[in-house]
């Protein structure tokens, strides 16, 4: 069976293009250039670039907008060189559902056949965006698949479907939170899929908070088991859980807090075969891993598949004699596809990975339970709660923001301060939206 769903996903450029199509005051056309990624049940077309149809190459009449063959040639030439797929979008201003007109349907058929011949390995699409919904068709390996979802990824993420979604009223247990974030914000939380990589000290707290706050689906990716040394900071775990999978203990604690949350346990270290596939469909990833190598893999994944990433990490260090506490520091970073990534921010780097590798071929996965690695639950708690608030901002939409944010917590000084990250176009940023390539 072929893919059932197609999502068009992009960052600021795609969001601006949609706004332009709806607010231009006349029919306009944009081409979205990008690459495809396969997910468990469908496809994601990842928007890498937007090209507006130049005015001199289009004309308008009572049937709508038309364009000259040279514009088709220009776009065809471009995707043949880059190996990208292409999606042509225009706007319809009517509220509620939108649909392709008979003229659109004819053009769509011709264009998809044409682009498929030019770059057969990519998906191509043709669609219309409205204020409340989207409609269109994608071509993929000789299949024709209805366009089912448009997602622009920023803070907040915005999603449109073929029809405006109907949402259930929030559960009475959420009343106090609904009073803060609105019915719509709560509906977004309960529709969201949040991936949580690592449920040790910080991750287990993130998980519990997400359950209490009414997250819809949480994907837990973690291979470790609970050991006695974890009990000082593993939320939801007690002596009877020693030897159990951390992911299972966390899932049980979450279900206790909120039986409505849907939990998928992926008992593997990221990136594993299943997590590498299933996390592509997540709305946001929260990363609570230990080392720079694991952090680097998640950072690359988030940039490649255009997923907001919220990363948490803490370091506690004593001096060489072991008598003096030198450092209790930590970070929470919210990384958006159009902003700086963890590598730009120095939270991962080739040097850090090399240090972790320590001359070995691949790093040993000693993690937070490495002998002697100091940990304090309350430090994790500060960073975990900050991360969950960022999930809320990204999902529920408290305030619009396109930039990456990075907070440092210096516990010995009692300070939490925000940094202003600058995107450096690093090597990881170069993989923006490259999908399955």
């Amino acid at each position, binding site marked *: 069976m072929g893919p059932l769903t197609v999502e068009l996903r992009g960052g600021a450029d795609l969001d601006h293009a949609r706004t332009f199509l709806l607010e231009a005051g006349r029919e306009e056309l944009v081409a979205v250039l990008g690459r495809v990624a396969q997910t468990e049940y469908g496809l994601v077309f990842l928007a890498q670039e937007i090209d507006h149809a130049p005015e001199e190459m289009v004309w308008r009449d009572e049937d709508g907008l038309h364009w000259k063959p040279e514009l088709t040639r220009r776009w065809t030439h471009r995707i043949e060189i880059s190996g990208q797929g292409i999606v042509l979008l225009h706007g319809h201003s009517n509220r509620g559902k939108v649909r392709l007109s008979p003229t659109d349907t004819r053009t769509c058929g011709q264009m998809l056949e044409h682009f498929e011949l030019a770059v057969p390995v990519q998906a191509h699409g043709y669609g219309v965006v409205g204020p409340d919904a989207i409609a269109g068709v994608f071509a993929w390996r000789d299949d024709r698949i209805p366009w089912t979802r448009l997602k622009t990824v920023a803070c907040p993420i915005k999603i449109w479907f073929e029809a405006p979604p109907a949402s259930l009223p929030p559960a009475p247990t959420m009343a106090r939170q609904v009073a803060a974030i609105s019915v719509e914000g709560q509906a977004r939380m309960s529709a969201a899929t949040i991936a949580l990589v690592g449920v040790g000290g910080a991750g287990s707290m993130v998980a519990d908070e997400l359950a209490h706050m009414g997250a819809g689906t949480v994907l837990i990716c973690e291979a470790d088991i609970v050991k006695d040394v974890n009990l000082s900071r593993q939320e939801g775990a007690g002596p009877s859980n020693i030897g159990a999978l951390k992911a299972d203990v966390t899932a049980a604690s979450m279900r206790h807090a909120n039986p409505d949350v849907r939990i998928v346990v992926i008992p593997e*270290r990221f*990136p594993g*075969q299943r997590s590498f596939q299933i996390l592509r469909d997540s709305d946001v990833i929260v990363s609570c891993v230990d080392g720079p190598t694991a952090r680097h893999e998640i950072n690359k994944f988030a940039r490649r598949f255009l997923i907001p990433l919220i990363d948490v990490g803490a370091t506690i260090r004593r001096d060489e004699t072991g008598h003096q506490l030198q450092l209790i520091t930590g970070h929470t970073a919210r990384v958006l596809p159009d902003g700086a990534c963890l590598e730009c921010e120095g939270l991962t780097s080739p040097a850090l990975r090399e240090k972790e590798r320590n001359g070995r071929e*691949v790093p040993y*996965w000693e993690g937070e339970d490495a002998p002697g690695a100091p940990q304090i639950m309350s430090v994790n708690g500060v960073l975990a709660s900050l991360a969950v608030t960022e999930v809320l901002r990204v999902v529920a939409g408290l305030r619009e923001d396109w930039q990456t944010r990075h907070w440092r917590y210096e516990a010995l000084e009692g300070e939490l301060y925000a940094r202003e990250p600058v995107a450096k176009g690093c090597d990881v940023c170069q993989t923006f939206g*490259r999908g399955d390539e």
Partner: protein
Amino acid sequence: MTRADAIAELKESFGSEAVAEQPLPSEPGLTLVIITEKQAIPNSKQTTQVAFKLPADITARPQHFVETHLVLPNGQQPNNVSNQELNGRLWKTWSMSTSWDPAKHTLSQLIDTVLKQWDR
């Protein structure tokens, strides 16, 4: 050994069509070289593509990769196994002890060693 020498030797051993070269944008200076023709694991029904990250000058053993589905005969994984995403695809690597030396051996010989690791 240069990367060009190594790739030429691989093409001679496996055929030009079976050797793919992909620059790694996330790791400048390194090229992912993939033996696209599936190689058989000795004494097993398992097959895999094999890949290496090659710098321009190969002065040490390059990092090796196989497909993620491989398992040892006992169903387990080798020591310190880890997955990495390279150009959108997941590969498996692990710690391997071998005396392979770029001054003395070829990459085809290293492929034999990599495959034999899964027949233990």
